[in-house]
């Protein structure tokens, strides 16, 4: 079976800065893939290229067998790409349920259906009790959850999670991990950018490490964390020698 998502030789330059160079990755159906790497590795850029915020300078992106390299974000959402934002972007003047309805409208044109779908998603993500609260009144962990709920309401095939577990308390992070597993069990493929290693590694099936815009290592989480190249990228030469 072909991969759900594939990037082929993707380059992204911002003026003289090369954020991604020759990145080729693939994400299979039903996988949870972690995209990790130190600060400035080009994770967010790659993430935005996949979400359709901007087209790559060079290379192509395939989703579900279709070339989506130059497709805008809204059209990708219709094809089945859902995303969250690293800096949460709730619709602050709208209630939680209304936020989620916006997402649900992608596949439900009848309002009543969209509303029903939104309630279903709130139930699934554990936000049901907060349905009628304004998004601006949510606590940070709930806002993260709302980002996920909104994206899930679009009924994606691939869910892109941008640091949804970062900055949460350990308990909140564990609830988040449980939610990601639940999402995968519902048949949705997950690609997550994260830098809290100890939370991501037990969760993902496969990890892709980026460093200086390139794919450094790719493989099972247990192998990746022991790879000298990864340790070097994160901690510097001194530690790599000891490994």
């Amino acid at each position, binding site marked *: 079976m072909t991969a759900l998502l594939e990037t082929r030789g993707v380059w992204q330059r911002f003026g003289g800065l090369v954020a991604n160079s020759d990145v080729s990755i693939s994400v299979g159906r039903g996988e949870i893939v972690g995209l990790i790497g130190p600060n400035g590795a080009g994770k967010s850029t790659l993430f935005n290229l996949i*979400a359709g915020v901007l087209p790559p300078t060079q290379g192509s992106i395939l989703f579900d067998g279709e070339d989506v390299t130059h497709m805008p*974000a809204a059209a990708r*959402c219709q094809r089945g790409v859902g995303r969250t*934002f690293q800096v949460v972007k709730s*619709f602050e003047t*709208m209630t939680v*349920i209304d936020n989620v309805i*916006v*997402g649900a409208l992608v596949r439900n044109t009848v309002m009543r259906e969209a509303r029903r779908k939104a309630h279903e998603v709130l139930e699934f993500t554990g936000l049901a009790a907060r349905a009628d609260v*304004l998004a601006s009144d949510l606590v940070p962990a709930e806002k993260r959850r709302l980002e996920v709920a909104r994206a899930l309401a679009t009924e994606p095939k691939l869910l892109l999670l941008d640091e949804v577990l970062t900055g949460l308390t350990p308990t909140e992070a564990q609830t988040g991990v449980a939610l990601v597993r639940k999402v995968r069990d519902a048949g949705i493929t997950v690609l997550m950018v994260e830098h809290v290693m100890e939370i991501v590694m037990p969760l993902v099936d496969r990890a892709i490490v980026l460093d200086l815009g390139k794919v450094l290592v790719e493989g099972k989480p247990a192998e990746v964390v022991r790879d000298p190249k990864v340790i070097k990228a994160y901690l510097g030469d001194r530690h790599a020698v000891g490994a």
Partner: protein
Amino acid sequence: MDKEFAARRRRDLIIAAVLAAIAAATPLFVKDVVVQNILILTLMYAGLSQSWNILSGYCGQISLGHALYFGLGAYTTELLFTKFGVLPWFGMLAGGVVSALIAMGLGYPFFRLRGHYFVIATIVIAEIGLLLFHNWEWAGAAMGITIPIRGDSWLKFQFLRTKLPYFYFALVLCCLAWFVTWWLENSKWGFWWRAVKDNPDAAESLGVDVFNSKMGAAAVSAFLVAVGGSFYAQFVSYIDPESVMGFQFSLLMALPAVLGGIGTLWGPVLGAAILIPLTELTRFKFGGSGRGVDLIVYGTLIVLISLALPRGLLSLFSRPKKTGAAR
């Protein structure tokens, strides 16, 4: 929860029907022409502000150039009437369509602008429109157009002996703008507009067609405002560029919504119900001697209200957070 939502929608509709019925009955008790005049203007501005609110309140694209669409409605109607003998009713529709098309044409370049830049563009475009009409000989230039009086007639929508037909038309216009807002509020467009206002990037990622959302809002908003402009032209039976396209109209459309509660269903009506009588009364009581006392009183009141209730008068009525949406 769905039941609660449906009940709230129904309650809004019932309140609107009751208010409309009360408004419709007022001419039975109010015979004073001056007061009737104030009521007509109040209803008209409530409708205009409600229409402005669709683009600027719901979709968040603040326009201070809606006088352009008001004027276009007035001019289209009267040019068709005086030059080609087209009845104002058709002129009204034509004015609406012309304005909606122009709003979309202008939206094409301007909806790429965000925030203050968009506001400035709307002001500039309306001023350009004003200048064009000032210099357009065929359309009467600065002299304007006097609508020929041919006696009371529903067909030509002109009445000399009574103001009542104007009153009822203004009421219908106000109700129409309210109903369109009510209806769109719980539609895909309504949700898209609010999403675009709050966060266009997030909206885009959820499959919202941001650009076309704005275009749709602009078209509906401009159409309704132009119908208001047509009505106003018939009501005053004389138009010139300043009197239908002046900047004050842009302000008088925005202020009631801002004062009452921007982006809310009831804000524009509430704002107009307070602001317009206030405008007229201060002018009546304090104005006329060239000292501008009316404007001082009027301005002070607006400043006081906005200081006390920055989210609009409607925030007085909104219940605690539990119920969510401010309305």
